[in-house]
């Protein structure tokens, strides 16, 4: 039951969705769409699962007073404040604080006037954006330390990257002294475009075809129950 039923569910759902492409009429066409709608709802429960898991892990850390429990407390405080403000749609109407903004609960949850959007603007956005902005520093540092023209292949990679780095900015145009700046011609930006349109497209297409065949094979294996890794490891009895 622990493995048979999930395998059956995967098989039924997978087959219905495949057949719905070939028979887009009742019942398969409708079933295919219905399953996609249910998938949408179940995917949302996955967000709740994520929140629940976060709660479980950090509450446990605080309860057992493990190292860094203070940060777990910060995490949970942020979690609960955001959840309460968002679920109750706190906002302001004519200077008064209201629950269920704008009073009838019908307001857009992403409306700038709602407090939930302020959490997005002044907490979430700076944190998310800055986390990713740090990558610029790491890519520079990693390039300095590791990017070496050790052999022919690495040199080809390096040259291609330099063409793109130059060609995708005005600097490429400026250093292409053989072509006047205001005229189109065989300059570095044009070379960068050519590199993207032809060899890069060729390489990426070869990879894409290979991945597509892999995904088709893996999807079939999953639907037929040959690949069961998503079910996890069987527990020791």
């Amino acid at each position: 039951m622990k493995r048979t039923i999930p395998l059956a569910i995967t098989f039924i759902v997978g087959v219905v969705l495949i057949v719905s492409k070939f028979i887009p009429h009742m019942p398969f066409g409708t079933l295919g769409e219905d399953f996609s709608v249910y998938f949408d709802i179940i995917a949302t429960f996955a967000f709740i699962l994520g929140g629940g898991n976060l709660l479980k892990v950090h509450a446990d850390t605080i309860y057992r007073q493990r190292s860094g429990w203070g940060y777990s407390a910060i995490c949970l405080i942020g979690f609960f404040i955001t959840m309460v403000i968002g679920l109750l749609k706190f906002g302001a109407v004519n200077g008064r604080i209201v629950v269920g903004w704008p009073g009838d609960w019908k307001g857009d949850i992403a409306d700038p006037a709602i407090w939930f959007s302020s959490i997005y603007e002044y907490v979430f956005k700076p944190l998310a954006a800055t986390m990713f902005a740090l990558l610029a520093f790491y890519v520079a540092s990693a390039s300095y330390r590791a990017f070496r023209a050790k052999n022919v292949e690495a040199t080809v990679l390096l040259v291609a990257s330099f063409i793109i780095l130059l060609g995708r900015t005005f600097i490429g145009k400026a250093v292409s002294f053989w072509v006047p700046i205001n005229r189109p011609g065989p300059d570095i930006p044009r070379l960068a475009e050519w590199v993207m349109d032809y060899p890069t497209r060729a390489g990426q297409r070869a990879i894409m075809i290979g991945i597509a065949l892999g995904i088709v094979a893996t999807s079939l294996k999953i639907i037929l129950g040959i690949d069961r890794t998503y079910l996890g490891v069987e527990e020791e009895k």
Partner: protein
Amino acid sequence: MGKIYDKIRNLDRRVVFLFIALAVIIPLLYAVRFPEFPTPMAKGVFDHIERMPEGSRVLISFDYDPASEPELEPMAIAWMRHCSIKKFKIYIMALWPLGQNMAQGAIKRVILKDFPNYKYGIDYVNIGYKSGGQGVINVILTDFEKLYPVDVTNRPLKSFPLFKEANSLKSMDLIINISAGTPGLKEWIQFGSDPAGTPIIGGSTAVQAPQLYPYHPKQILGLLGGLKAAAEYEKLLGDKYPQYSDVKLNKGRMRMGAQAIAHIVIMAFIIIGNLTFFIDRARGAKKG
């Protein structure tokens, strides 16, 4: 000389960080800007939208979040401006949870600010976010209402004139997708544009762009990859419509100066790193 070489060879990564920070801060402080020369790809995207008649139905999907906003917001704003100027019917949605916030921001900055005559429900509508990625696209291919019973203000879709004219992805004249990853442009091409036969134009982060090139030109009409492409589109829009020609209204163009300088700094570091590598290799060969 040897000491200096050793210091360069074993440079603390925080020194690299500092140089990168300065490479970005100084051009922004001194408003370093360079002229933009649009590429054929950006021109192709622009010309396609220019040729479309008034009243065309365009679906814009905001599939990104604040982490990618600096790259993607300029093109999102440029497209919203272009579609509004051309008086298209705009259907707005999102496949990322924060895409709904991004969409709200674009509506506020473009439609509410510059196009007061644009009426909600008649000229544009925001149906917001749904989870499920390709599952969402699979459903709206034939029926919006099945997955989107209401818009972001909880009003039924059928109450809007826009959805009386168009009830599925197949009814759209163009899909514009602004994408930072998965679900995004790839899924829109695979599950939306290809099955529906609806043309699609995409904007993506620079990281994602090379992986999407194979879809061009047969499956995607055009692709704006990264901040540079956004700046090119802003230039084209400003040249055609002078009210948007001021560079201060175009964040993409404003940011390209710092982008260019930072590229030079990174290239310099790569060259220095390789020089130390070759010098060490030559020294090693000499000793051997």
